[in-house]
């Protein structure tokens, strides 16, 4: 008899006999549908699939994007299927991760023309990338990898070293990866569900030393953060977070959080957006127990990459503002997000939240999905789009 057949009657017995019919208890919904109440069971809403092909630059409707006066947007590179987060190498290579495409890319700027190389393929949603001291760190779902001396060998990349093994659950565990001011690698370990009481190993932001040692949790109660950055002056952590699905069109909001020190709990799964108790996991818990969000970013907007502006190309009022890419909703009757926003932090006053780039949708038509932001050395902005598989560049000229 197999171990699982032995275990099942025991489980039923321990739970009081017959309360949990094994196969009924284990009929697991696809992750995106989990937590959908019966009243929404006929909803046509579902995630927007990643196209298998990137869109050629000439067919990307970049002319539809609206920006403040003086700003211009163009397609900087195309042919990067499922393009996600970006990091700059010392020699100017832009590295990108992806999700279902399984690839890590290197984009080399050849004087006005960009060449795209695949430096790793067949990985499990390698969405987090970070370049540091000649090495490329890649966070895929099951592992944290390090490619040494990567820029010297873009055409024959070295076999990676495995620095750390993550929990195996795939849902919400495509990772963002960033380097903290403390020299540690930070990444998310998302909730393995839409809404559930997660184990300690999930629904957090954690950090680790560059050699893979010293793992520790940094922030807890974080449903899924796939973007964070540190304020250029205070060096404190700010992160975006995706709110839960299937509570209706207008709640909860995705949120921006401030985590100036380790150990804070941000409310998931008990409290959403700082003021809504979860219908299933909120009982007996008050929102006041948890660190509140700094800002509500809009319902279902899919707040992704966040970066503070430290360059000198944009007008001075943008200096130290946070730019946030809202990839855009699926779990909402009318689409929301599909924009790039700015947040101005103001001491003693609420943050100012403004539209920067608009027009990545036309009604319910998806025209693009801005995903991550990266500053170029000249202060211009790169924006990845994982729907078109492209990078845009936004420049300013008065």
């Amino acid at each position, binding site marked *: 008899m197999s171990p699982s057949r032995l275990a099942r009657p025991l489980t039923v017995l321990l739970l009081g006999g017959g309360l949990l019919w094994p196969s009924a208890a284990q009929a697991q919904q*696809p992750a995106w549908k989990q937590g959908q109440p019966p009243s929404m069971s006929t909803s046509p809403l579902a995630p927007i699939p990643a196209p*298998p092909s990137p869109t050629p630059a000439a067919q990307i409707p970049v002319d539809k994007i609206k920006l403040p006066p003086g700003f211009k947007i163009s397609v900087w590179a195309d042919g990067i299927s499922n393009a996600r987060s970006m990091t700059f190498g010392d020699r100017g290579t832009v590295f990108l991760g992806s999700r279902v495409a399984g690839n890590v890319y290197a984009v080399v700027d050849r004087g006005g023309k960009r060449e795209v190389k695949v430096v790793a393929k067949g990985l499990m949603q390698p969405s987090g990338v970070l370049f540091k001291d000649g090495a490329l760190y890649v966070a895929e779902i099951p592992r944290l990898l390090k490619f040494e001396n990567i820029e010297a060998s873009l055409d024959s990349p070295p076999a990676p070293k495995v620095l750390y093994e993550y929990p195996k659950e795939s849902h919400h565990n495509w990772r963002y990866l960033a380097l903290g001011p403390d020299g540690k690698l930070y990444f998310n370990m998302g909730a393995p569900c839409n809404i559930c009481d997660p184990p300690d190993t999930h629904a957090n932001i954690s950090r680790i030393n560059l050699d893979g040692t010293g793992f520790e949790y940094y922030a807890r109660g974080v449903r899924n953060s796939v973007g964070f950055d540190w304020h250029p002056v205070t060096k404190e952590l700010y992160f975006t977070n995706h709110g839960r699905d299937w509570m209706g069109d207008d709640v909860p909001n995705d949120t921006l959080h401030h985590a100036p020190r380790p150990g804070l709990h941000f409310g998931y799964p008990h409290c959403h957006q700082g003021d809504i108790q979860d219908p299933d996991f909120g009982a007996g818990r008050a929102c006041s127990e948890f660190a509140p969000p700094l800002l509500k970013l809009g319902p279902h907007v899919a707040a992704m990459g966040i970066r503070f502006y430290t360059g000198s190309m944009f007008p001075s009022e943008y200096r130290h503002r946070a730019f946030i890419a809202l990839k855009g909703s699926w779990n909402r009757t009318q689409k929301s997000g599909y924009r790039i926003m700015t947040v101005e932090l103001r001491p003693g006053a609420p943050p100012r939240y403004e539209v920067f780039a608009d027009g990545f949708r036309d009604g319910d038509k998806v025209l693009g999905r801005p995903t991550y932001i990266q500053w170029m050395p000249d202060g211009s902005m790169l924006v990845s789009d994982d729907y*078109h598989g492209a990078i845009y560049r936004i420049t300013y000229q008065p």
Partner: protein
Amino acid sequence: MTSRSVALAVLSVIALLGALTAAATTGTPAVDVEAGRRKAEVCAQCHGPDGNATAPGTPSIAGMPAFYTHWQLIMYRDGRRRDPQMTPFAERLGEGDLADVAAFYAAQRATARPASTDPARVAAGRPLAEKFHCTSCHGPRLLGQGQVPRLAGQDFDYLMKRLSGYKAKSASDLDGMMTMVAQGLTAADIESLVHFMASLPPAP
């Protein structure tokens, strides 16, 4: 509502949204079905000239959503899905070839595979397709959509192999979804589901 409108409304999910967004934007590169037909000639030996295979264990790919076939070819090419016959073939295809071949098969009409399905098993499998949420992604009549394959009328042996593989965590999986949902299935559930799926009409 008619069953067709239910099909569209209930789980237009991945495909409908995908198809709408892809068609509505200029976002999808031009694909060439006729070029796909020529490039797919080498596939005919196993999958049939129009993607309707006959050999037990070989899937029919006629009428498959283009995103599905395209992603599977990418996975074969990149070593994420392995098969002694498919792998060397997929490795020779370029980006544009994958899209054309996928579009060609999407444009073909699927025909039923001969299967001696057991009516009692079919009846047992029908409610399981709801209970285990197969219909959530594959659609109410399991015709597939977007990156999600058609199961209706697919080859019996192939369905058995794939579903058992997901349960064993050994089958290739684009995003981990099937491996996760298959964990609750018993061997008997799998068999009933496969009888049910194989018995369904493969085309709308």
